[in-house]
């Protein structure tokens, strides 16, 4: 009953967000102020604003969260009430971030998102990996948020206002500007899982798949991109920050794409691809041109559609098969059953992967091309950053095509070379091959699950044309060739039944281990030190106080002999002593 109520509330809220986006479309940008508060010189109000960016993000958030809410009704049955409530709160927090015109209001939404992501990732809290993944996500994003908070202070005090709409205008020293934007960037990097704070996002995968869709497509990670787009004037003014952003984005997109190419679990591949695609958006933003910003936001929208779609498809696989690991899926697919049993999932997932890989005609193709085009224009104007971004995005396009084709072929098609064997993913259990799993119960799921899939699949195609067709044929040709270049090796490897995964990629460049040594181990040491200090220094005083009391009472107990004469003696001696004392004082 409560769960039903919450589901109605959740879907209703998402529809409300979509409705407000429709109503606000084309309205004059305006800012509404609410009474604020302040400390000393820092005074801030709680303002909301509406402009094109707000409307765009509201539409994206509304559509994706509506899909996720509807999909969740069929997908999730345990602890549904709290889950739905948290998803709704998550959406509301993202809406707060989107409409905020005050840095502090934005921070509130930003932090609530962090808390919600923690709670949602640990939805299956019985599982150890879910708990630790949630903890990791929370701690790492918190680490970034500290920088974010200080960035707000530096920028707000530097400009003398905390209103976003007034930020670009005032005077500010270049040092303060650079410091503030770099600090904000730390928060953005944490939230959007860019290098070097990238490790939490893949580990957040034990959460329910719809939540992954929400986090990866519309909220949380997109908030970082949104923030830079929102404060674009400020960031453009800070040349150094943009360069740093470009370097971070380029490193991240290649890093994440390489990791995705070696991952052996559908959701993990998708998680790394999100990191990589976000980096492409950041790369677009880091160009510092209006074209770059436009391209990044375009990519954000198309990415929201196809990444949401892909995660919901992965959710169907998890729901039906029980696992999204390649090795399990291979068992179902070696007779080619998987795609026949779940035609809708197969088709929509194919569309999503095509969009991600940049197959011509799909949404991802157009948005990626616009980023490449913006980079090319910038590079042609003689910018090193532009060249850097251009090359990185092209390389990433190759890798993206590679891992998309690899994912698609390995999970949906039987391998000719291995004649239906589990092949490259069968690591340990040779006998698992012996019997076939039960195919009879595989199906697409109810219309509640299929509806969002179809809707998002349409989005993953149509959204590419929403921006108007302005194709540069040279660039389109180049990216198509690059995609084919990536797809061919994947196909050839699959035909031979081989899936070479370099150890360094499987371990994701050893980032986790290195962080473990650099951060976790010292922190554990400090924790032990603190425990020792508490137990052996502070606790010693406490125990000593208790022991002194015990010893003293044991000593006093010796006075209690049970002998009346002893008592009397002490009483008289006490009276005498008191008399002497009184005499002394009186004198």
């Amino acid at each position: 009953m409560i769960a039903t109520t919450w589901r109605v509330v959740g879907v209703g809220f998402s529809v409300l967000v979509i409705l407000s986006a429709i109503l606000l479309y084309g309205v004059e940008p305006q800012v509404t102020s609410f009474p604020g508060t302040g400390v000393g010189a820092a005074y801030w109000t709680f303002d909301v604003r509406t402009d094109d960016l707000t409307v765009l993000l509201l539409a994206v958030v509304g559509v994706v969260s509506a899909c996720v809410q509807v999909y969740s009704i069929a997908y999730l049955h345990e602890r549904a009430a709290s889950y739905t409530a948290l998803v709704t709160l998550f959406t509301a927090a993202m809406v707060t971030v989107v409409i905020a015109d005050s840095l502090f209001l934005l921070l509130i939404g930003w932090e609530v998102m962090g808390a919600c992501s923690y709670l949602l990732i640990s939805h299956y809290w019985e599982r150890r990996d879910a708990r630790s993944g949630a903890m990791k996500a929370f701690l790492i994003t918190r680490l970034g948020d500290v920088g974010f908070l200080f960035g707000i202070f530096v920028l707000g005090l530097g400009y003398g206002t905390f209103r976003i709409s007034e930020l670009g205008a005032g005077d500010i020293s270049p040092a303060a500007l650079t410091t503030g934007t770099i600090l904000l960037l730390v928060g953005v990097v944490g939230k959007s899982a860019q290098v070097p704070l990238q490790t939490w996002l893949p580990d957040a995968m034990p959460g329910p798949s719809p939540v992954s869709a929400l986090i990866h497509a519309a909220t949380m990670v997109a908030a970082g991109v949104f923030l830079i787009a929102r404060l674009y004037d400020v960031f453009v003014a800070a040349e150094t920050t943009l360069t740093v952003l470009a370097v971070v984005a380029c490193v991240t997109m290649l890093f994440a794409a390489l990791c995705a190419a070696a991952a052996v679990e559908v959701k993990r591949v998708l998680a790394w691809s999100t990191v990589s695609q976000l980096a492409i958006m950041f790369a677009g933003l880091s160009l510092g041109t209006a074209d770059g910003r436009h391209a990044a936001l375009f990519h954000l929208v198309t990415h929201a559609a196809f990444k949401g779609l892909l995660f919901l498809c992965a959710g169907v696989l998890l729901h039906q098969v029980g696992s999204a690991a390649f090795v399990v899926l291979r068992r179902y697919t070696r007779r080619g059953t998987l795609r026949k049993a779940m035609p809708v999932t197969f088709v929509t997932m194919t569309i999503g992967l095509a969009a991600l890989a940049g197959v011509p005609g799909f949404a991802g193709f157009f948005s990626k091309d616009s980023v490449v085009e913006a980079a090319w224009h910038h590079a042609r104007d003689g910018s090193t950053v532009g060249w850097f971004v251009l090359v990185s995005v092209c390389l990433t396009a190759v890798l993206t095509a590679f891992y998309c084709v690899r994912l698609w072929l390995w999970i949906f098609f039987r391998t000719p070379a291995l004649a239906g064997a589990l092949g490259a993913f069968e690591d340990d259990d040779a006998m698992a091959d012996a019997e076939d799993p039960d195919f009879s119960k595989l199906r697409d799921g109810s219309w509640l699950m299929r509806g969002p899939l179809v809707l998002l699949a349409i989005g993953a195609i149509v959204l590419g044309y929403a921006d108007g067709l302005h194709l540069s044929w040279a660039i389109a040709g180049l990216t198509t060739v690059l995609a084919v270049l990536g797809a061919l090796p994947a196909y050839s490897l699959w035909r031979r039944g081989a899936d070479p995964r370099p150890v360094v990629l499987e371990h994701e460049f050893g980032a986790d281990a290195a962080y473990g040594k650099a951060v976790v181990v010292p922190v554990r040491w400090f924790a032990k030190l603190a425990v020792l200090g508490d137990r052996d220094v502070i606790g010693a005083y406490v125990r000593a106080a208790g022991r002194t009391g015990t010893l003293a009472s044991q000593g006093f107990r010796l006075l209690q002999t049970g002998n009346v004469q002893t008592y009397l003696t002490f009483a008289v001696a006490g009276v005498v002593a008191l008399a002497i004392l009184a005499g002394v004082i009186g004198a």
Partner: protein
Amino acid sequence: MPLVLPLLLAVALFCLGVYGVLARRNAITMLMSFELMLNAVNLNLIAFDAWRLDGLATGQTLAIFVITLAAAEIGLGLAIVLLLFRGHGHVDADAARDLLETADTAKEIDR
């Protein structure tokens, strides 16, 4: 006659009584020492009565009262001593330690 003479005698008797009560082992000698202390008090009362001469003979009256009290006290005291003897077989005040609270008796009290 100087007033301090009976007063000093009373002090001496009283302190001898105190010593006797605190130091003597036998319970009956303790009671005897009590009598000494009471007598010292009486001596004080009589001496001050003779000094003040208030006409009501207050000191002497009170002394008689104290003597009566002493009679009552020794009667009860000796009854207690006899009870002690009946229970323990001796009247050694030093060895009568029924008031001692050991860990066991403490537990009993707690219960």
